[in-house]
């Protein structure tokens, strides 16, 4: 059989941006306490104008702490921190540029919410481990009317060797400062919130992103000219609020995180620069006229953008892009292609590249809690090891084996045997002393309880008995039953003269639905007292037509009379001293049966009549001998009598069917005549009846006659069915006794040669099902393969059935088992199976 699929499953549930490699720390600074940084708060440059060109790292936090580091390989030493200074106001951004008038030295511009300050940094050898000490010197400061957001610098207007500052405020004012002079302010168009600001030196223009998710470009020249005529005289306000002339605009359609100017596109001319815009989900590269050039969709949340130059050919310098992400990785793009991915320990808010010591291209990474590291791109795989406890100790196979064995034996113990009853099972018991029997009626008190926790509602208790016993109330409904309380239900049975009894079993069935909507049923079988079915006959009946002799293995005389003493309880005078019991069934006809002790001789008026008494005898004898009693039967099987009964039943059925056909015909005729008569009577000028009325009457009479005979035949059929059922049971008993069948074979025999005779459906009766059953039994005994049972058809004659029963008996007499001996294991392997077919 097919051992199903391997369930191999998809590897991850969410989008992951993962990397094979980790960036390795080259140097790292201690993480400051409770400080917050944003993307502008990192600046890497030679801010102290060190002649050796050593690069310093400058950070500034919202808490107003300005720090300058000189990273050196290895662990952090106190000498690496050149300066730590509290400037007293939150630091929004730090930049290095040529901000000092009449000097080309680098200076540090620090942006605070309400002012921008320019410092010069000077360093001198310090006492500590051959390090340096930096000093800040404030050169000039501009107060800002609006709270600032960010700034950019550059040679605005094409000045040579100078950097001017442009500060963007949170409410959209651009303030320009030419060193220590304030130049002018301009209001940006349709402003809501500030975006990144970038200065393009080549075109002398500014690029920013507005809240409408558009990239806008303004020329410095136009900015300076707009409103300049009146700006000097009037108060700042109306004049400078004039609409600024837009150079170009690009509708980006998503929020912009960062903008940088780089030469990304490899097929651009040497003088051309690209504008790289980092959005929330896309990176686009624009030409300097605002047209889109390249586009990449990101599958992670980017956090920062940086471009670094690489010299690809001797005269060409291009830029690669580093994009940091919130999934703690950064990717390096060459145009739109990922060339490297690396994991970091933090979410970078700013990344720069610099040369420290002799190493080119180290990455300076700052996160928003101030963790500052200098990394190189390591090639160590980042293995996340899942710790499993068993790893620590060497695996002990013996111990595990023992443990497994123990577990398995426990499981086997727990699950052994038949499936257990559910806890809330219904329990029924017949109170033994409560039932008292009279001549024609029986009272049985049934105790019903359940073992569950909840109250059960609407319990149906039904009873099933065979004739001649009838229950006064076949079904009793108990509205509710509390747990651990036994309900007592009284059933009254009465006997009525009817056909031959086939069993003295009384079956109670209780069903209910518990609170979890699960059905619960249970059954309880008892045997009705034998004396309800029979009356003792005073002079024992003798020389009855049907006779047979049973024997027991242990040749022992049994006191039959004593065994059946209860039969005489109500009729003492019929009691005899002889070892005999002789009874008359409470049937509509006179049916007698008698049993004589010794080798047990039984006789009866007919074969079916012998069944109940035989069963009762067997039961009583077995009880008396405490179970270890075996009957034997050496005589011939009374098959001839049996076949007669079958024939009678079959003939009865055939007649029944014929009569029903007749009935149908008569009814048809009757209806036809009725119809004609109706037609005649409906007509106003009725035609003569032409003796139709006579015909109708005659048909009616014959219809009634046929119906009566159908009814009669049906009663006969039921009667013959009963006697057939009883006879079949007896035959089963005799076969079982004669051939000493084991339990499995008995089961097979009882299902094939069934004693259940159902004559409610005429078209499919006992004979056919037995023929089909035996047919299949014989074939399966012979063949290894399953056989197709042909469609059942009403038998014309019973000879086939008789032949088959004979055949079975014949086989049994030869010692063939009814159970397939080589019971083929149901195969597990489809191929094996199919190859045989």
């Amino acid at each position, binding site marked *: *059989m097919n*051992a199903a699929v391997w369930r191999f499953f998809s590897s991850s549930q969410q989008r992951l*941006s993962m990397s094979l490699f980790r960036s390795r720390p080259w140097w790292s600074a201690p993480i400051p306490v409770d400080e917050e940084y944003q993307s502008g708060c990192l600046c890497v440059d030679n801010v102290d104008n060190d002649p050796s060109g050593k690069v310093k790292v400058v950070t500034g936090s919202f808490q107003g702490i300005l720090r300058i580091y000189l990273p050196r390989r290895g662990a952090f030493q106190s000498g690496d921190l050149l300066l730590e200074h509290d400037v007293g106001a939150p630091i929004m951004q730090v930049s290095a540029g040529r901000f000092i008038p009449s000097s080309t030295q680098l200076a540090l511009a620090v942006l605070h919410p309400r002012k921008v300050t320019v410092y010069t940094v000077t360093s001198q050898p310090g006492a500590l481990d051959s390090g340096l000490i930096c000093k800040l010197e404030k050169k000039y400061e501009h107060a800002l009317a609006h709270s600032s957001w960010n700034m950019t610098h550059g040679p605005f207007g094409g000045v040579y060797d100078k950097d001017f500052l442009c500060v963007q405020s*949170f409410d959209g004012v651009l303030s320009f400062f030419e060193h220590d002079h304030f130049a002018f302010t301009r209001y940006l168009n349709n402003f809501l919130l500030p975006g990144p600001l970038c200065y393009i030196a080549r075109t002398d223009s500014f690029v920013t992103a507005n809240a409408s998710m558009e990239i806008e470009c303004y020329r410095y020249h136009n900015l300076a000219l707009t409103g300049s005529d009146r700006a000097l005289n009037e108060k700042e306000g109306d004049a400078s609020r004039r609409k600024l002339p837009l150079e170009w605009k690009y509708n980006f359609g998503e929020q912009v995180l960062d903008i940088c100017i780089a030469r990304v596109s490899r097929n651009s001319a040497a003088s051309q620069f690209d504008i790289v815009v980092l959005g929330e989900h896309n990176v686009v590269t624009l030409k300097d006229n605002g047209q889109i050039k390249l586009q990449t969709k990101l599958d992670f949340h980017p956090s920062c953008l940086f471009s670094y130059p690489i010299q690809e050919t001797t005269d060409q310098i291009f830029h690669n892009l580093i994009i940091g992400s919130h999934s703690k990785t950064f990717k390096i793009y060459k145009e739109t292609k990922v060339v490297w991915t690396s994991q970091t320990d933090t979410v970078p808010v700013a990344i720069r590249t610099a040369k420290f010591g002799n190493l080119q291209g180290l990455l300076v990474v700052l996160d928003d809690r101030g963790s500052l590291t200098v990394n190189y791109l390591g090639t160590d795989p980042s293995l996340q090891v899942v710790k499993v406890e068993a790893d620590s100790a060497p695996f002990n196979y013996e111990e595990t084996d023992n443990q497994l064995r123990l577990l398995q034996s426990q499981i086997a113990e727990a699950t052994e045997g038949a499936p257990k009853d559910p806890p809330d099972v219904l329990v029924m018991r017949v109170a033994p002393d409560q039932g008292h029997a009279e001549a024609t009626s029986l009272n049985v008190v049934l105790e019903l309880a359940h073992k569950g926790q909840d109250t059960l509602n609407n319990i149906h208790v039904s009873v099933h008995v065979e004739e001649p016993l009838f229950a006064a109330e076949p079904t009793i409904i108990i509205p509710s039953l509390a747990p651990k309380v036994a309900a007592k239900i009284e059933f009254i049975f009465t006997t009525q003269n009817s056909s031959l009894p086939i069993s003295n079993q009384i079956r109670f069935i209780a069903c209910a639905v518990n609170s979890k909507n699960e059905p619960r049923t249970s059954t309880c079988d008892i045997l009705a007292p034998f004396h309800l079915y029979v009356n003792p006959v005073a002079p024992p009946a003798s020389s009855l037509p049907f006779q047979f002799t049973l024997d027991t293995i242990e040749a022992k005389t049994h006191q039959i009379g004593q065994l059946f003493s209860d039969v005489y309880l109500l009729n003492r005078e019929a009691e005899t001293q002889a070892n005999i019991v002789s009874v008359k069934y409470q049937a509509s006809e006179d049916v007698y049966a008698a049993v004589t002790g010794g080798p047990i001789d039984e006789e009866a008026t007919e074969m079916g009549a012998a069944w109940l008494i035989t069963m009762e005898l067997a039961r009583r004898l077995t009880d008396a001998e405490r179970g270890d009693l075996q009957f034997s039967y050496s005589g011939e099987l009374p098959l001839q009598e049996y076949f007669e009964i079958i024939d009678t039943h079959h003939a009865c059925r055939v007649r029944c069917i014929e009569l029903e056909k007749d009935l149908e015909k008569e009814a048809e005729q009757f209806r036809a005549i009725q119809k004609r008569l109706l037609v005649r009577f409906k007509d106003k000028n009725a035609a003569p009846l032409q003796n139709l009325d006579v015909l109708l009457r005659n048909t009616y009479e014959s219809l009634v006659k046929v119906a009566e005979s159908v009814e009669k035949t049906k009663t006969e059929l039921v009667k013959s069915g009963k006697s057939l059922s009883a006879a079949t049971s007896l035959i089963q008993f005799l076969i079982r006794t004669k051939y000493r069948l084991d339990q499995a074979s008995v089961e097979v025999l009882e299902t094939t040669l069934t004693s259940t005779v159902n004559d409610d459906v005429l078209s499919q009766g006992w004979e056919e099902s037995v023929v089909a059953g035996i047919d299949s039994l014989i074939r399966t005994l012979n063949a290894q393969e399953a056989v197709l049972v042909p469609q059942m058809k009403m038998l014309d004659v019973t000879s086939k059935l008789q032949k088959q029963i004979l055949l079975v008996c014949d086989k049994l007499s030869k010692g063939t088992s009814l159970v397939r001996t080589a019971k083929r294991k149901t195969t597990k392997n489809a191929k094996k199976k199919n190859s045989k077919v």
Partner: protein
Amino acid sequence: MEPATLAYSRLKRRRFDECIQTCTELLQKNPLDQAVWYIKCRALTDVAFTDDTEMEEEGIAEILLDDNAIATAPRPGTSMQRPLSSANSQRPTSRGQSANRPLSSSGRPVSGYARPGTSSRPLSSAVNPNRLSTAMGGGRLNTARPVTSSGRFVRLGTASLLQRPGGEFIEVDRLNLKRYATRPALAKADVREVLSIYLLTFGHPLRALELCSVSLVESEHKDWFWKAQTGKAYYRLGLYRDAERFFLSSLKDQEMVSSYVWLSKIYQRLDRPATAMDILLKACETFPNEVTLTLAVARIHDAMNDADKAMDNYKAALTLDSYNVEAIASLASEYFYSEQPEMALRYYRRLLQMGVSSAELWNNLGLCCFHAQQYDMTLACFERALHLAQGDAAADVWYNLGQISLGIGDLGLAYQHFQIALSLNPSCAEAYNNLGVLELRKGNADQARSNLQLAAQNGPYLSEPLFNEALLSYQFGQLDESYQLIRKCTQLSPNHFECKELLESLDSHFVTHEATQLMQLEFQEELKY
């Protein structure tokens, strides 16, 4: 420092909780501060962000109420509803049945990477779109269709909104959109844009559509952004044809990768994978190095059961981005199912090196090790998988352990493994099937049958339980029942060889039986004459 500045800075650094908190405080003081409102709106939207270019899981209600179907019987290879009908799905491999690629509940082959729309497992969310009873009770109002898949947008959003007293941030029903349009000074384009994204994210596509149409008129139908937004709103409303129109128009104005991906998504929803593929290939010409597009092409091939082409595309994606988890995982699973566990193992090890560490990965590694005959590693891998696994994943790991036990022949152990798997996930059809087979080996035919029936009930997409039950019925002589089961089974897996064999032998049974009956009849007729 000014709180608004701080909030904006934190928004940029995706510290949404702090940002939203600050904004809420500021808005309580001055509810009309548009900048703060804008920041808060963006923060809320970003918290609830889901990549909307991904395919959503299609709920049963959407399938039932889908009136966009074009052809009910599409030609082979043109529909994703019948991926097995692909013309070249038969691959010339000598693989056995055990490595048959499992199918998801929608009958598509399971991909190597769990994305919405391919998942074989029901969603863990409270709203399970695969059950009709829950599918109809979607949480979204205001829409024309009972909502299923988009329910998760709402869920994410309201979860973050509920943390604040006073209900939703924007009272959507009270928005007067006309006012927004007629008084541009009050609400400029920027506010409208962020509002439209907000509305879409939080599941108010009708209102978003109104806003979009107003803005489109204002922009004189030239703004690609508004066209794309309109398309998205139409998509949410289930009006795919209109969505397609707007995206096409948007692409004319401005070619964007995401617009192309959206368009292909719409075509997939319309069950036109070929058109979706064309769109993506066209986009690939414009953006030759775009991983997203290559992956999208590969996914469509995968969904169409065209594994070879999908592999090619995944490999192409890997040359563009050698760290792409999805491509690696898909390639690995494809190698596994084409009986190259050693190759699969290498890919999975790569994933492991890249820092992916999940129960699924360890499980797959364990399976690969087992099939590549590196038995010493197998159990160690599974141990780690169990260590990491939770919920249904744990059930699957136990199931696979059961398979391993079957493989080493320890049937008792396998039996217990499957039982554990079922105790963790009582609807694991495969485990029922295997338990059925094991019960049969023990000789409990009734128990076996009931297990197989449970398997068939829980996994209507599986052919194995049907086949097994058919075989069982066949052996017990219930040929009619067997025949019916095997017919169902052949429908599910038309290429299953043993299935065909059984069907043939059953056919021959019926034929010979009829023939003998016929002959008997003829013979009787002859006798009469």
